[in-house]
């Protein structure tokens, strides 16, 4: 007959309780839902940017423009994964976390830079029109805080 020490028994119970809690919480499905929601939000923001008269893409540098284009292409063919696979989710996480700051910046720029209607812009009987004030982009440029490298590990 095996004798269990009290500490070992407590540890075993904690480990069992922890794994049961993980099984009940089902974090995989939650992660799937969370990334889907964030991708939908990205889609909506990109739609706003596309439909706007302001060419906000010009505010971005070449690499950020490429990022946004690749996300647009990805979103056109994207199908919600049914199960949580580490590699798929990792790719999805990298895509979402690296794109969100750029798209949010674009969306904010579009919202703050919308030109007023023409009637309001034209001052009455002015001989020389002063140039319209330049539209200032949002103060902070997108700086993705997310960093990930492929050369890590032990």
């Amino acid at each position, binding site marked *: 007959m*095996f004798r269990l020490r009290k500490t070992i028994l407590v*540890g*075993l119970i904690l*480990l*069992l309780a*922890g*794994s*049961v*809690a*993980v*099984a*009940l*919480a*089902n*974090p*995989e499905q*939650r*992660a799937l839902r969370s990334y889907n929601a964030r991708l939908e939000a990205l889609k909506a923001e990109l739609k706003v940017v596309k439909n706007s008269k302001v060419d906000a893409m010009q505010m971005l540098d070449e690499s950020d423009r490429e990022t946004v284009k690749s996300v647009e292409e990805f979103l056109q063919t994207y199908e919600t994964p049914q199960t*949580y*696979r*580490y*590699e798929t*989710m*990792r790719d*999805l*996480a990298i895509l979402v*976390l690296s794109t969100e700051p750029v798209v949010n910046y674009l969306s904010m720029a579009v919202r703050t830079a919308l030109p007023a209607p023409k009637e309001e812009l034209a001052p009455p009987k002015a001989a020389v029109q002063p140039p319209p004030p330049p539209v200032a982009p949002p103060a902070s440029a997108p700086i*993705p*805080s*997310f*960093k*990930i490298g492929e050369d*890590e*590990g*032990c």
Partner: protein
Amino acid sequence: MGPLDKLGLIPEWYGMEIAVLAGFFFGLALERAGFADPRKLVNIFYLRDFAVLRVMFTAIVTCAVGLGVLWAAGLYRMELIYILPTKLTAQIIGGFIIGVGFVVGGYCPTTSVVAAVTGRLDAVVFLLGMCLGVVGFFVPFRLWSGLYEGVQGQILVPEVLGLSWGVTLLLIVVMAACMFMVAAWVEKKINKEDVFAQASG
């Protein structure tokens, strides 16, 4: 929300500092558990003392369940941690070689560092041998680079079994508990036989 350094919540170099601190305490725990003594370490190969198995497996299970709980609580993102890609052939051959090195030299790489810090000369020799082994592996790498072709990506137990992560964790905890019971039974049996052999010898 973690991993903290991946999400930019702490600087990347700070993660390295935490790793150094964690490494220090890991080494201290190994030394306190008696793992700087090669006799205790190799006893697992003679089925006399399964302390290595118990300590290492407990650490693995605790870490796995801990990460799972943090993930379930929304404090951690499992997909952002780095998992080594599976290279089955290379890992099987490497595992065999490290096992032979362990039983012959009396240490694994980590415990050899711990033992060297306590001043054991044999551990220092083992460490030097390990460094030579690294060079001996690296310099003619082209000879066995074929083993690393066709990397199979990250093959994970829940994905292979088609189970959820929680159920997999539960199975691993139950498996660990069963292994510990079997190890305790084997230890008792072998050590009893040793006592009889010594008494009759």
